[in-house]
């Protein structure tokens, strides 16, 4: 098996090099042949991708190292394809006009072709303008205390249905989401040196691009991406995952509120309080059986229940 994979990599590298050389040489190809040369290269890249796909199934699936190597190869293929399309626009001028093929009616269930949906005047090509008002959100803040109770509810909302929260671009902030508003999913992106307290929520906690934060939260699913150096106090009723993260420390959620109040919040969020998988973290970058180097459990001495207390008492005063 090792021989087969080594052999595969060797052939792969040769073909990749040859494609790269051809790419560099594109500048010297006469203009009339550029399109043909590019098409030919695209085909070769496709063929190469195909071999990779075929080999992946032959290689031992849990051999993480090989997987990562192949992944790197795939990435380099992608960057090659991108260079190609850039070259294409650079070298081959766009056609002046062309005949569009007639639109064939799509088979929609919800709105059959006989009654087409009313078209907005906005061009379909532009990114859709979707209002973000249903989100309760804090964004672009620094050195601040942010309490969800200070946000007004979306217009026409009676505060009984669960709402999603978006926290974006916060630096050195303290965020308190514990209030009588039921919450769904919590979308967190680009937080630096922040502390967050999240009540039991009926959705997921989704986190991207955070650093040096403390997060205290309870949810059905926890998905954390491209973050590092985080302290996470978690109650989660399914296995939490991390992806492209380093230096993540996990601890149980803890008794952040009086038992009766906390029980009520757990029940409202339909979370089972006795079912906590905070210590069963799955790392997408670590397929081996051994413990991932990207996360660990906190020692008892590292757990600081006073963090939540300090934040929560602030609004009872």
């Amino acid at each position, binding site marked *: 098996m090792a021989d087969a994979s080594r052999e595969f990599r060797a052939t792969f590298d040769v073909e990749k090099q040859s494609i790269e050389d051809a790419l560099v040489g594109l500048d010297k190809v006469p203009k009339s042949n550029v399109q043909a040369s590019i098409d030919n290269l695209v085909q070769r890249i496709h063929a190469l991708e195909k071999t990779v796909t075929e080999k992946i199934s032959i290689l031992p699936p849990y051999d993480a190292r090989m997987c990562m190597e192949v992944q790197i190869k795939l990435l380099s293929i992608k960057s090659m394809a991108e260079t190609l399309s850039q070259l294409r626009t650079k070298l081959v001028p766009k056609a002046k006009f062309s005949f569009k093929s007639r639109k064939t009616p*799509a088979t929609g269930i919800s709105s059959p072709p006989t009654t087409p949906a009313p078209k907005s005047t906005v061009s379909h090509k532009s990114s859709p303008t*979707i209002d973000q008002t249903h989100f309760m959100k804090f964004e672009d803040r620094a050195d601040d205390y942010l309490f969800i109770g200070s946000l007004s509810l979306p217009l026409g909302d009676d505060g009984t249905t669960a709402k999603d929260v978006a926290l974006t671009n916060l630096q050195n902030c303290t965020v308190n989401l514990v209030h009588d508003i039921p919450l*769904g999913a919590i979308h967190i992106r680009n937080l630096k040196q922040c502390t967050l307290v999240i009540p039991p929520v009926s959705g997921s906690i989704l986190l991207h691009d955070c650093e040096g934060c403390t997060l205290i939260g309870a949810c059905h699913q926890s998905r954390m991406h491209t973050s590092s150096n985080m302290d996470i106090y978690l109650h989660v009723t399914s296995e939490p995952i991390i992806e492209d993260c380093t230096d993540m420390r996990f601890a149980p959620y803890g008794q952040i509120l009086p038992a009766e109040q906390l029980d009520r919040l757990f029940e409202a969020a339909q979370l089972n309080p006795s079912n906590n998988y905070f210590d069963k973290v799955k790392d997408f970058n670590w397929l081996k059986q051994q413990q991932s180097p990207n996360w660990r459990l906190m020692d008892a001495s590292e757990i600081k229940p006073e963090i939540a207390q300090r934040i929560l008492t602030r609004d009872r005063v």
Partner: protein
Amino acid sequence: MGLLTILKKNRQKEKEIRLLMLGLDNAGKTTILKRINGEDIDTISPTLGFNIKTLEHKGFKMNIWDVGGQKSIRSYWRNYFEQTDGLVWVVDSADRLRLEDCKKELHELLLEERLSGASLLVFANKQDLPGALSDDQIREALSLDDIQTHHWAILACSAKSGANLLKGMDWIVGDIGSRIYLLD
């Protein structure tokens, strides 16, 4: 779908359909699969690899492949393309922040040669959430009307309540059936 494939399928006594369920992470793919299969949906973990379920529906044997949507495993989606009759694309209708991402991934998939014959069902999932976009809004956000290469349909659904899941399955099975098993 080539003639040979049609003939091959036709020869089989049992009518088999292979469905591939994809979408961004947290869209609700596994929840849909488990809900259809009548399993518990309260303790579903993010999918690290894939799940497969075989179900009987309308006289067809459906093999549904549910593959994880995390970014680092999206590059492995291609390993599941072969012989796919139908693609079920699941969207978290409340996740407005990543709709652009969702659109990009879907349209990239549709360029894939090995999926060229597949019917496409888009599930606008999580309609139980108050902030969910309607199926028409999702249809526009994902530029579904630009799709010329595949038979497609979009359906608002909720994996949590089960609403419209079977209706969606009915459509995709019907669409595939009318294409592949025409010669029956």
